[in-house]
């Protein structure tokens, strides 16, 4: 479960989030819609505990923002699959190595890793691309590779920050469908931020709107 209770956060320049209350149940698929600069990334950063609220509390599963110790943050992040607009794939590693990275962090052995990478790449439709380097892939393929990297550790939650921002409409639609499949088949909670209303309006999921750092409907 993801819960934000009366959360506020202000950047030095003044803007941020104000009095956010939001609850996302386990297995739910929720869209966060709002224009550029409305606070979508800030909200996701708070959930990923890259930043901490000035007031209020963020709860992600067993982790609370006001009590979590610094050394426990990696454990929280291992339970979350994060995908973003900029893919954060490593250029000097092939797809296999990129996708395998989270399992190395956890400490899996090589055999398990090979099997899991194949499975994850197959799930996102990138089987056979193991030896390709990120720069050899299209934007959609790179985003799917990011999704494979997020999925490989079987996260309970996927946080997607404008994952379709750099993709064409067809590829964007395919990615949303893929996230929906993961949500329905694995029961993974998905919270996806987007400014593309036309992409999400026809999907049958809860939509939360953010504007100037405030939620309009939740």
């Amino acid at each position, binding site marked *: 479960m993801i819960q934000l209770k009366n959360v506020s956060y202000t950047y030095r320049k003044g803007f941020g989030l104000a009095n956010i209350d939001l609850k996302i149940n386990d297995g739910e698929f929720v869209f966060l819609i709002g224009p550029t600069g409305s606070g979508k990334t800030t909200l996701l950063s708070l959930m*990923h505990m890259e930043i901490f609220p000035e007031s209020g509390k963020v709860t992600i599963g067993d982790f609370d923002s006001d009590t979590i110790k610094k*050394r426990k943050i*990696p*454990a*929280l*992040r*291992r*339970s*979350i699959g*994060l995908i973003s607009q900029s893919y*954060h*794939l*490593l*250029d*000097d590693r092939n797809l296999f190595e990129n996708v395998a*990275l*989270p399992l*190395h*962090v956890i*400490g*899996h*052995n*090589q055999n398990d890793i090979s099997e899991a990478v194949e499975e994850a790449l197959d799930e996102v439709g990138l089987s056979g691309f193991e030896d390709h380097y990120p720069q050899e892939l299209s934007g959609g393929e790179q985003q799917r590779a990011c999704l494979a*990297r997020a999925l490989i*550790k079987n996260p309970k939650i996927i946080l997607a920050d404008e994952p379709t921002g750099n993709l064409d409409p067809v590829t964007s639609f395919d990615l949303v469908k893929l996230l929906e499949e993961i949500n329905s088949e694995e029961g993974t909670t998905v919270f996806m931020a987007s400014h593309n209303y036309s992409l999400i309006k026809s999907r049958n999921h809860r939509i939360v709107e953010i504007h100037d750092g405030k939620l309009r409907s939740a």
Partner: protein
Amino acid sequence: MNKFLFLLSEGLKNLWRHKLTVFTAVFSVFLSLSTIGVLFIAEQNTHKLIEYMRSKYKIEVFFKDSITNDQASQYLQEIRKIPGVYSTTLITKDEALKVYRSQFGDDLTEFLEYNPLPVSCVVNIKRQYDGMIKINPIIERIKEIEGVDTVNHQGRLISRIETFYEQGLLGLSGIAFAIILVTVMIISNTIKLTIYSKKDLIKALKMIGATHTFIRMPFILEGVFQAVIGAALASALLYGAVVGANELLSQLTVFTINVQWMFLSWLFLIAVIISLFGSSRAISRFIK
């Protein structure tokens, strides 16, 4: 174990991934350790030189006319207790006469009808004395002994040699310390550059839940590998240079360069310590 193997392989792979910066760091370590090695070899051989010179230091102690050989022997025991004194050799009145005869050909007792030469002794200084030998306090202590009449010594020369030796050692240590400091800075800055160029990797690792230790370890291992390679190259150069120089010297002089090769293991240790310090310093600035 799986994590450790992965981090180890990452450290090794990073050597190839960051070829240019690695080359800079390895070359810096190589140059620094080679210089430190040369200084160490110089120090070891200077040490031999100072030991040789100390073996030539001689203090001659003349006892009063009234002092007998037996009394002089007791005074010699007192002299041997003075710090810095290695040995004493008693020269009896008869032995002094023999020396006089051999050097001047005359027999003093023939026309004086007694032996006027006093009992004396030669005092040798310790060769392997830690630091500088201060000759004046030794001479003062000898002079304080009751039966001593006069003390002949090369005090000024010895003091000059010892001061020069001490200043030389201090200078070498200073240079070595400066080189180590510069190497730490170079390694630290090289790793900083590497880390800066790997911001994406660090961001990705943080994103997927890597601990700080996991993120830091490949950079630290990379630094250690660089240091070990640099130390190996420096060791090979120093070994080759000493063997080559001795080969050449054997044809020209009897002097050879002596090296305790165990010091090469110290070079490796210094390199690893420098790299650990340098890389930790660099990483702590970026990964907090």
